């Protein structure tokens, strides 16, 4: 499960002022393992300042094209890994990477006849780009309507690639750029080309409603994919639900960074019983530590990748006791009700905690 493979950096490209894209070489013997669906991500491992850190990055390449796996990393202010990657990674470096995973993906099939609504902002373009390319190239009959939000023109990642796709698939691909702080000379230039290409504002309720009104679905099997920072996902989702889009048709991916609920104090020195990798492990959870960290610190190897409550790789079943999740951006209410918890976010609330990892 949480096995890492060293992959070589094949190419690095500066995409914008504060983002790079990286392509990896896949050795032949790993071909059959590094299979992914458009929308899924890779987890990278680094050892920085004497600590092991993992971060997830969505694949922006398409598994349906002859492309090397590619990720794009945008700097996060004071961020440890994103800046490390932007500043130091070079062609030829070897990086430890886990097999692709993730629950956010499009089930792309040649015979599909669907309408895809893609909403993204900032670095949230990465999984969306993979879905976009895969659908356009593979599903000859499907339609794609996409909104891509950015601060201004220079921060648009993959702008050239997107323009080329727009040109190539004019009949069934619409792309609207929204800019929260547009650079006026540029916007004028674009307006003359196509009135729709550019809009001022953010991806919010008003924008979403305008968009759907303007571009109603043709193929009636419509799906809605959302990826972006902060409140963008919630806002878009709320807007869609506000016009009765069924929940089952909405798919979201959060990159993390939400504010955690740190108000709850954990139970001091709670006892943990964990069923992990066919073993029973018993230990004490030091104050302030999560279940996941307590296990890692004791030399165990629990599954995880983002450690940010986003990817749900670290999920386990709570058999006994009570926990508090500081953040939960991936499990839905039903899954929580069934006793699933994110171990990377869980601190104990009772004296004895028993969990079982199923993967």
């Amino acid at each position: 499960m949480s096995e890492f493979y060293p992959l070589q950096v094949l190419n690095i490209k500066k995409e914008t002022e504060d983002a790079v894209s990286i392509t990896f070489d896949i050795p032949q013997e790993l071909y059959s393992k590094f299979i992914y669906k458009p929308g899924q991500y890779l987890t990278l491992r680094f050892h920085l300042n004497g600590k092991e850190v993992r971060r997830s990055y969505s694949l922006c390449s398409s598994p349906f094209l002859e492309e090397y796996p590619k990720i794009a990393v945008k700097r996060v202010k004071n961020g440890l890994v994103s800046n490390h990657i932007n500043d130091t990674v070079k062609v030829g470096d070897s990086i430890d990477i886990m097999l692709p995973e993730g629950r956010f993906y499009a089930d792309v099939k040649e015979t599909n006849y669907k309408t895809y609504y893609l909403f993204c902002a900032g670095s949230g373009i990465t999984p969306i780009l993979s879905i976009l390319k895969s659908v356009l190239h593979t599903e000859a009959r499907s339609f794609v309507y996409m909104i891509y939000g950015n601060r201004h023109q220079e921060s648009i990642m993959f702008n050239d690639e997107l323009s080329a796709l727009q040109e190539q698939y004019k009949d069934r691909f619409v792309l609207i750029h929204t800019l929260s702080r547009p650079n006026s000379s540029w916007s004028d230039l674009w307006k003359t080309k196509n009135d729709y290409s550019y809009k001022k504002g953010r991806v919010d309720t008003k924008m979403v409603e305008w968009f759907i009104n303007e571009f109603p679905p043709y193929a009636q099997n419509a799906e809605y994919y959302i990826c972006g920072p902060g409140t963008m996902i919630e806002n878009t989702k709320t807007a869609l639900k506000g016009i009765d889009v069924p929940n089952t048709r909405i798919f979201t991916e959060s990159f993390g960074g939400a504010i955690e609920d740190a108000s709850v104090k954990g139970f001091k020195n709670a006892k943990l019983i964990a069923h992990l990798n066919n073993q029973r492990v018993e230990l004490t959870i030091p104050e302030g530590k999560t279940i996941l960290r307590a296990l890692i610190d004791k030399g165990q190897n629990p599954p995880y990748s983002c450690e940010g409550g986003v990817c749900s790789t670290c999920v386990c079943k709570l058999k006994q006791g009570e926990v508090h999740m500081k953040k939960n951006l991936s499990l839905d209410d039903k899954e929580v009700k069934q006793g699933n918890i994110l171990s990377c976010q869980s601190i104990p609330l009772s004296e004895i905690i028993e969990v079982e990892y199923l993967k």
Partner: protein
Amino acid sequence: MHALPVEAYTSQEWLDIELKYLFSTTWQFAGFVEDVANPGDYISVQAGLNNIFIIKGRDHRLRAFHNICRHRGTQLLRAVGKTQKAITCPYHDWTYDLEGNLISVPKKESEFPNLKGELHKCDLNLHEASVDIFKGMLFVHPEKDAPSIMDFFGEVEPYLGPHKVEELIEYRSKNGEPFYTEEIKANWKIVVENYIDHYHLAHLHEGTLNMYDHAKAEFGWAGPHYWFYEPLVEDFLNDVENAAPYPLIDSVPRDQIGAYVPWLFPNIGITESESAWNTFHVLPLAPDRTLVTIRSKTMNVSEWEYTKQYSKSALSKVWTKYGNKGKYEGDKNDPMASGDFMLEDIYACEQQQKSLQSPYFSVGAQAEKGEYAIQRFQEEVKKWIEKHQ
């Protein structure tokens, strides 16, 4: 008559089988996209044994449900209309949201103590059906998880005309009726067979459809669907800008002008020409009665453009030679002398149906190419019914 027995054209038993295993197991034509234009708009249609309504949500996506209240089965919605957020049964006011979820039952606590918890979890939501769009047309299927509409029509799509149907507008009479409706006294399959019979074009319609070059016709099958194309005769093509009865459809490139006349299985034909785009929908009413509805779309240009085209067309020499003569001379009230190809077709269909009663009736011989389609269509009907029985 070849693949099917004569009873298939005369008996109620056969029609019942067709309604159940053919018209209730296929994607059925339900209208044009613009029939359900705005959120809240709905229409209901009969598709085989099922009455299905299509409603547009605020997300502009269409939903289809069986038009029966889950309480006592009353029809919920009438033919066309508009609703805001809910669908209420006229009988006892049971109410559903636009996702088909049951949301309110009058006197629930006192009358239905067994309905506990949230209503939409009581297994009394509307039965879902499927709806999708193909070439600007709405189609419904009675199953919730119907096979994709493109599994059904995908194969024939490349053989259809290049017309961008969504850009065209529909001709409607002043009271909103479609272009043409007619009850024909013949079995629905006779009407279909006449539509796909290439052999008769140069004969029955020798004076009415001769602006198309029947000798250059191309046709074939794609799945259960029939496709057909023939170019214009040269005289017509050379003067088509003037001679066309309506403004030319601009999404059809000059080198692709012609008549595309596919038959989409089982009961809708399309006639895609240089200046008009028509649907020809066939609905069985009885073993020997069939309702034909033609809806017609043409270019979205001003009244003035139509008037201009009409005058140009009237002056064109093309029509002195083509498309205006009846097969027989005589009284214009005689369909065979009318110079109207629809009347000619109806006449032929009804005459054939009458003969089916005769003990002496049989099909003597069949044109190998020109009538192959008829045999094939009957086989497709038979195959489909056997597969779904």
